[in-house]
């Protein structure tokens, strides 16, 4: 009898820990997707860098920002890298994917709250939300693979990391779900 009680307590603690992990990674991912949304909004085709304008590096600005002239010029190159390596479809694709990512992450945060509050359907919904996040990561990965090498270098590593994190979470959620089904 006591061992069943202990088993239940351990299972509850495991689910709570998983929910905390989902929440913390969710916050980070939410910030990441929001920043990507901002990035794609700010850096668009037809802007000054795209029109071939050179960097305007004033001495007072450089001193204030503690930058060298070379760094200031490279900042413009940084924007040029994004614009040159992006295919035409990439910006709208990223805007849509980031918006979906924000929505899916918010959904996963709500589900994680449910897990902490021990709501039974939350575990099944957690599988759904984590799978959704994984699909979004894979979609982002596939898109990044089809861009230029300079943009790929920026995106692929972090996307691969997120795929690993969400895959681990998905396996854990499915396992806890199976345990819950066996106990009931």
């Amino acid at each position, binding site marked *: 009898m006591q061992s069943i009680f202990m088993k239940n307590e351990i299972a509850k603690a495991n689910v709570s820990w998983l929910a905390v992990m989902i929440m913390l990674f969710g916050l980070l991912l939410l*910030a990441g997707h929001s920043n990507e949304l901002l990035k794609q909004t700010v850096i668009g085709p037809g802007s000054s860098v795209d029109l071939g304008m050179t960097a305007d590096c*004033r001495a007072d600005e450089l001193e204030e920002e503690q930058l060298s002239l070379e760094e*200031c010029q490279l900042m413009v190159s*940084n924007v040029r890298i994004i614009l040159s390596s992006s295919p035409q479809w990439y910006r709208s694709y990223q805007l849509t994917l980031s918006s979906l990512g924000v929505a899916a992450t918010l959904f996963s945060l709500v589900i994680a709250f449910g897990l*902490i509050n021990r709501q039974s359907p939350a575990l099944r919904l957690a599988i759904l939300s984590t799978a959704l996040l994984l699909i979004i990561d894979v979609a982002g990965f596939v898109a990044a693979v089809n861009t230029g090498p300079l943009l790929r270098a920026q995106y692929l590593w972090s996307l691969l990391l997120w795929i690993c994190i969400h895959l681990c979470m998905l396996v854990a959620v499915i396992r806890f779900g199976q345990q819950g089904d066996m106990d009931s």
Partner: protein
Amino acid sequence: MSETRNPAKPESENLPRLVVLLHWLLAASVFFLFISSWWMLSLPLPSEEFTYRELPFQLHKNIGITLFVAVITMTAMRQIAAARGELVSRLVAAFGSGGSYIAVYAADGLLS
């Protein structure tokens, strides 16, 4: 002897949902401010031609000010709650969260 707060219950069950939501919203905003500030500082310096920094900087300021007001309000509400009951434990919690918020602001200010 009646208790207004069950110590066996997690903190989240004792707080109103709106306060919990506000706390998580603040946490999400702090993460966003950090990530966006690191990124926006790599944008070209502002000039007449280059206006890339305008939107991110304005957004950073707006979210930062909103966050600051929210933190002050929440700390004040905690102080009021502390005056009502469980003075010592709530004061410790208020100073703890207030201190962490100040630390976050200081870190953000230093980094950006």
